[in-house]
């Protein structure tokens, strides 16, 4: 953008209207959108203030690790830990997302102020406008954005560690909204394993020491220096605690204070706990990452593959067409779930993480529908004048395919992909439920349900609650897909079938 436009923008609005996402839209009369954007934007500074310590430590850990990786690349696998990197991602997300929002907000405002709303009536603009009118689909999209945000930020949002079951005897199978008595300790009883023992042969021992320290703090943040007990009393210098049926003691000196009223408290489980005493809410939050990312990546893979095959079959026709479409027929003849089961069982011994295997299998077994769709679209588009013109000009096949045909068939592909994500999430959950999906202790919605299914009669909440999460996500994706289809295809609007 040129200098003049920036000046114009400055003339119209105050600093706050320009730079705080959402405010400008509220002033311009787009209330709902503006308020939603503003609230979403404010979420990030709010979270930053709420857990600033964790945030700072995440960055410190990241900076130290990056430094060590630069000076000593060979040992990176020793100090890179998945659970620590989760914190990096969340911390980065808190920083990057507001900047992205700020940038998008400014760009859109500039467009609005300069050209009214008429700057470019492309197919996308029209479709977006149509989509926004559809309240249900737009709300579904808002929910999906929030869910993905939650998935990114789950190390900061989850109230407890999703995998630690230190006081399982006391906390197991607590119904939703129930509390247990906890004693506040000076030091966490559980140490994260493997962090302290890091032995690195580098020229920077102090950096390694710092990294170990900060990683330990980061990990123990979620371990909570608490001891959950059924009941307790103080006798002299000892705390006598009842744990299940046994009596255990601990010196009062290990508590945060000597006053029983000060060192005892309660811990509330919003959605209850499972058979190991792990918090269901935290597990659902962590599990959302598996379902949401897996669904998205698998669909990306299957759509790319399906589009490629469809383009080839439709564009080159003849032998390519008949061979590829016969393969599609054969693959469609397999019930998809059987195909997935047989491939996973055949390849489970190879050295690939289970999540990657599942993404690959789900992606490679669901592209057939897309390729049929794309082939049909290509067959109709390739006879149009602009394609013939491009061919007459002597353009290569690759260029015609990517520049002339693909852009014209993109909308049905996008709509179809959105509608597919829900289905893929359901299949992934089913695999986890059959216990061949994501392996415990990594939480996924499917395997939380699996773990709770044998305790339906005495702990209904374990299996019930993650199911609601799945339903909400799939319903939202389906609604959004329907909305996109209606938006891209205005002819359908009159007759919503």
């Amino acid at each position, binding site marked *: 953008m040129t200098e003049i436009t920036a000046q114009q923008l400055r003339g119209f609005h105050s600093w706050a209207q320009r730079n705080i996402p959402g405010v400008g839209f509220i002033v311009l009369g787009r209330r709902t959108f503006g308020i939603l954007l503003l609230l979403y934007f404010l979420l990030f500074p709010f979270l930053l203030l709420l857990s600033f310590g964790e945030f700072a430590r995440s960055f410190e850990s990241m900076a130290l690790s990056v430094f060590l990786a630069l000076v000593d690349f060979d040992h990176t696998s020793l100090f890179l830990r998945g659970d620590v990197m989760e914190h990096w991602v969340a911390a980065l997300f808190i920083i990057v997302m507001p900047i992205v929002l700020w940038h998008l907000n400014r760009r859109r405002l500039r467009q609005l102020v300069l050209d009214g709303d008429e700057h470019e009536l492309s197919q996308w603009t029209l479709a977006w406008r149509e989509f926004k009118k559809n309240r249900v689909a737009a709300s579904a999209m808002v929910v999906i954005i929030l869910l993905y945000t939650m998935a990114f930020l789950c190390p900061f949002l989850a109230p407890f560690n999703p995998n630690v079951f230190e006081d399982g005897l006391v906390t197991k199978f607590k119904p939703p909204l129930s509390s247990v008595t906890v004693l506040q300790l000076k030091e966490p009883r559980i140490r994260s394993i493997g962090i302290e023992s890091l032995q690195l042969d580098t020229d920077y021992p102090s950096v390694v020491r710092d990294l170990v320290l900060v990683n330990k703090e980061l990990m123990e943040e979620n371990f909570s220096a608490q001891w959950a007990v059924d009941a307790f009393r103080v006798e002299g210098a000892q705390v006598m605690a009842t744990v299940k049926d046994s009596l255990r003691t601990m010196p009062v000196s290990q508590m945060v204070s000597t006053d029983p009223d000060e060192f005892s408290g309660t811990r509330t489980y919003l959605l209850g706990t499972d058979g190991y005493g792990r918090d269901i809410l935290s597990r659902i939050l962590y599990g959302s990452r598996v379902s949401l990312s897996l669904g998205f990546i698998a669909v990306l893979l299957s759509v790319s593959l399906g589009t490629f095959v469809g383009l080839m079959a439709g564009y080159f026709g003849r032998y390519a067409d008949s061979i590829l479409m016969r393969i599609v027929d054969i693959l469609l003849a397999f019930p998809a779930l059987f195909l997935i089961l047989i491939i996973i069982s055949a390849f489970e011994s190879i050295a690939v993480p289970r999540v990657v295997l599942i993404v690959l299998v789900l992606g490679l077994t669901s592209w057939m529908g897309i390729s049929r769709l794309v082939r049909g679209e290509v067959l109709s588009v390739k006879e149009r004048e602009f394609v013939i013109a491009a061919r007459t000009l002597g353009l290569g096949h690759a260029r015609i395919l990517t520049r002339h045909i693909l852009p014209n068939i993109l909308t049905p592909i996008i709509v179809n992909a959105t509608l597919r994500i829900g289905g893929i999430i359901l299949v992934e959950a089913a695999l986890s439920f*059959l216990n061949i999906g994501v392996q415990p202790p990594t939480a996924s919605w499917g395997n939380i349900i699996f773990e709770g299914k044998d305790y*339906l009669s005495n702990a209904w909440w374990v299996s019930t609650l993650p199911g609601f999460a799945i339903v909400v996500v799939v319903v939202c994706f389906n609604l959004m897909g329907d909305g996109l289809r209606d938006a891209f295809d205005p002819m359908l609007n009159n007759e919503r079938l």
Partner: protein
Amino acid sequence: MLRYIIRRVMSAVPLLFGLLTFTFFIIRLAPGDPVSLYIQGDVDPMFAENLRNALGLNDPLPVQYVKWLKGMVTGELGMSFSKHAMVTDILAATIPNTLLLTAFALMFNFVIGIILGVITALRRGSATDHIVNVTSLFVYSMPEFWLGLMLILGVSLHLDLLPASGMHSAMARFLPPLDYLWDLIQHMILPVFVLGVASAAATGRYMRGSLLEVINQDYIRTARAKGLSELLVIGKHAMRNALIPIITLLGLSLPFLLGGAVIVETVFAWPGMGKLTVDAIFARDYPLIIACTLVSGVMVIVGNLMADILYAMVDPRIRYD
């Protein structure tokens, strides 16, 4: 007509052939040596080599392929690792159970789906229409296994109305025939419902669309103008045409039902092919897994074939030659 049927059957043959080839290459691509599944520990390498020779694993790939194909076509599916029985015998015991479940689910799917579709199409825009549409959306977005668990929780455990799992009660063998049947029906209600309800929601949606399209056509207006009763107009004139696309769904819904059977049979401990497959996978019982996959593939192909033939019979516009 006969010629059409013969031609469709003939075109299913390469599909079956492709299915067999595909299955063969999946096993060959899988890492690991099949012989190592039979023998364990420190066995004499010569013994393993002899076994490999005996099983024909040292033959060139095309020879192996032809031999394997011959076995499959003649019905020699081999011996199950985990169950110590012929795969064909095991399948013969479980396939009827799955077919029972799938057939009733298919019926449920179409009867309920068509009824819902007709009601919502005729009362388009009404409260009923909206309620059915929203409910369908939720049912369609629900994991089958979760719905099953929730029904077990509500109907079986809390209300104690229906049995939670299995196909027969423990003492069912000693019951008189009618009670035996009633016992079976009680065990079938929940699995059939769970298996059929999601596809019923989808069928309902298609039926609604299809009927709406037909209702707006001229010949329906003509029928109304002639003074025919609404029942006759919808039931005879409109339904005949609206049902045609639904028949295609019959073939399309089979893979979903068979896939769903894997889940539903596991949830309800139904002794069918789906549960067998899952058990076989955990036992790494390759011959059984391959056989289950093949049988389900064949079922889908046959189902599609039947749907196509039915389609041609119902719709006179399709030419047979």
